[in-house]
């Protein structure tokens, strides 16, 4: 009888242990105009906390949310002093620094041009026609970081033109992916996780195999793959994400503030890996604007690695080992 009781207890114990053991979980949803999913291993269900964290970041920084950092800046008039929280000042200071480091190739002040070209949501690309040259020049003048004066000691920002506007969309997903990764690792003790937010991916606790979207039509789901090391975030930008064709010319959403036109650098896709997601995201955009040669030099300078795809379907690797899947691409 005692033996039977012991066996029963053992079975109960095994079942309990199985229930408490860390399980593989996936949190899914939408945030910042993108799909997100987080694969994580944890004994606790953190789906709701991940969703809350992402929506708080969206509310703080999305240009579309009233009262957000960018909405406040964009609604302000010329010379009005906009006070910032220390977190906002820090983020803006990082973003301004990145813009400077990339010689304006990453330009968060580009919203007037983005709107003129019609690449702001809801991304209706049907029947789009490029804007007139004169309007491009007007919007270009407005799309300058020099119109903003960030004061990091006073935690404030002032703009010198009322219509100047900021949009952190090109970098905020990297920032958010990192925030989720830090939350899981540091606050929740999650041992491993993959954070995916609209193509930006953070690796927590172990390395992950990542494929890169083929920038042109392909029979494969990815053009090439690489290993994203633990603690790193990767981001990919390309001319294939939002674009329209007019008179046989592709007009895509990554605009070059120096010309006022979509970037025509010969780069059709750039994947950048860095420990800081904000930097990875911003640099991916910058490389598409700068081109392969300057882009590779920029990655080197910023301590980033990556893979740049040119319009000839050649992959320029920057301290990153890639394995080609779609054979129409080749390593340069």
């Amino acid at each position: 009888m005692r033996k039977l009781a012991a066996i029963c207890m053992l079975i109960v114990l095994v079942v309990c242990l199985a229930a408490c053991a860390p399980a593989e979980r996936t949190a899914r949803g939408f945030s910042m105009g993108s799909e997100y999913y987080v694969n994580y291993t944890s004994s606790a269900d953190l789906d709701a906390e991940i969703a809350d964290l992402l929506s708080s970041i969206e509310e703080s920084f999305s240009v579309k949310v009233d009262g957000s950092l960018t909405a406040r800046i964009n609604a302000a008039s010329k010379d009005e002093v906009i006070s910032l929280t220390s977190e906002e000042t820090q983020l803006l200071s990082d973003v301004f620094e990145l813009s400077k480091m990339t010689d304006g190739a990453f330009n968060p002040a580009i919203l007037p041009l983005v709107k003129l070209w019609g690449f702001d949501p809801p991304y209706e690309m049907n029947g789009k026609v490029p804007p007139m040259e004169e309007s491009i020049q007007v919007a270009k003048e407005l799309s300058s970081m020099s119109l903003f004066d960030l004061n990091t000691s006073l935690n404030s920002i002032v703009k010198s033109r009322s219509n100047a506007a900021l949009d952190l969309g090109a970098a905020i997903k990297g920032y958010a992916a990192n925030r989720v990764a830090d939350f899981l690792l540091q606050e929740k003790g999650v041992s491993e996780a993959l954070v995916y937010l609209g193509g930006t991916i953070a690796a927590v606790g172990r390395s992950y195999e990542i494929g890169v979207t083929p920038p042109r039509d392909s029979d494969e789901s990815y053009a090439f793959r690489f290993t994203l090391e633990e603690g790193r975030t990767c981001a990919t930008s390309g001319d294939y994400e939002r674009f329209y064709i007019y008179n046989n010319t592709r007009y895509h959403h990554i605009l070059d503030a120096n010309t006022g036109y979509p970037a025509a650098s010969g780069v059709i896709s750039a994947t950048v890996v860095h420990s800081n997601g904000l930097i990875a995201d911003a640099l991916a955009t910058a490389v598409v604007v700068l081109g392969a040669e300057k882009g590779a030099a920029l990655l080197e300078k910023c301590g980033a690695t990556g893979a740049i795809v040119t319009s000839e379907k050649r992959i320029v690797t920057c301290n990153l080992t890639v394995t080609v899947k779609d054979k129409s691409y080749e390593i340069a």
Partner: protein
Amino acid sequence: MKLRRPFRLFRIWDVLLILVLLVLVGLTIYFALAPRDGAFAEIYVDGKLYKRVSLSNDTTIQLEHLTVEVANGKVRVIDADCPDKICEKRGTIGKVGQSVVCLPNRVVVKITGKSEVEAIS
């Protein structure tokens, strides 16, 4: 003098217990490692799995705002009522890792199965 029971390493209950545990371990390993052949289309609505269908069976799944069509091992979204129709324009997908996203309707259709990559950037 009382006879001592001879020492035995295993008794009947021990053997039974070990057998039960071995079966449990075996089943765990089987379910953890069993190859899941063939690709599936997973349809998520608002982040929740709505349906999982094999790509080897042709079918159509009618959702509130769009229809998912599975035919010849491929999937596409048709009859979407969103303004941008980006999901329809994505065309057919059939490779593991590919997905169609309809942001306005918060629908994701994803091909799952064995793949060399764990995510696509």
